[in-house]
């Protein structure tokens, strides 16, 4: 395990998924909403579950678990939809949403959290790194890899 150190505080959100937890910058998240009816999007990728109406936009909803290639179970009634701002360089209406199994929780990182070993991480291009926060493994998504998958 790498040496711990402290540094600037980074406000993050811990997003619970099915069997894993993601850690994303709070600034990347536009809103967290309750599950709602989705319009199916025919002939889409297996990880794209449909689209929801949010404000005046249709927002595509992804399953990060499906991107990782793990089996996807039905979202629990307590599940949430985490709506992300458009990825860097994309158009200002290109929000996307992700299923979460529960309410995301704020986490303030200060650099003291140990970095997870590579062997602890799923073998996926969509995971950039992992952190141990209070002893729990949290995965940091690779937003550039997501952008390549979303907008090939």
């Amino acid at each position, binding site marked *: 395990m790498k040496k711990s150190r402290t540094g600037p505080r980074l406000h993050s959100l811990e997003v619970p998924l099915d069997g894993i937890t993601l850690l994303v910058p709070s600034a990347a998240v536009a809103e967290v909403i309750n599950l*709602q*009816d989705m*319009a*199916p*999007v*025919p*002939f*889409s*990728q297996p*990880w*794209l579950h449909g*689209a*929801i*109406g*949010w404000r*005046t*936009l*249709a927002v*595509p909803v*992804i399953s990060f678990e499906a991107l990782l290639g793990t089996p996807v179970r039905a979202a629990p009634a307590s599940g949430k939809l985490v709506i992300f701002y458009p990825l860097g360089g994309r*158009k200002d*209406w*290109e929000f*996307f949403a992700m299923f979460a199994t529960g309410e995301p929780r704020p986490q303030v990182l200060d650099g003291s959290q140990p970095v997870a070993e590579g062997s602890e991480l799923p073998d996926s291009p969509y995971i950039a790194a992992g952190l141990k926060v209070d002893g729990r493994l949290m995965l940091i998504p690779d937003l550039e890899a997501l952008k390549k*998958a*979303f*907008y*090939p």
Partner: protein
Amino acid sequence: MADPNQYLRLQLGETSYLLPSASGFTIEQREHLVINKSPDGPVAAWQSLRSQRLPAYCLDGRLQITRHDDWHRAVFLDATPHAVGLVVNEVQLVPRSETVVSPFTPLGLAPTRRGHLFSGAWVAGNRIVLVFDPKAFVAYLQSLGDA
């Protein structure tokens, strides 16, 4: 001639879609078409013209080929080399003033050589009606074959 300031609302199974009418279309009554009596093959009916016959497909709400008899019209979309059609449970012209269409592009690889099937969405509260990209939708219909 189609009014470019309208959308065509197509009911396919339980799902509605919009098609920009500027893309060009004609609506034919069932009695003017030649029904495919064979249960096999993707074509539900043909429109017979002088030198050719234009296929009309029957799609479900997920845009998969299906066959049922509960339709009364077919919409033929202008295309090259010839128009291509789909039979519909219901078709309605909707003035653009009654809709607010936002841009929408599905994520991931596009399913047709002309790109994604949808280029917009009409969002009314939590209800979404996806808007076809005419060129991609025609490309999809043309890929279904005419056997």
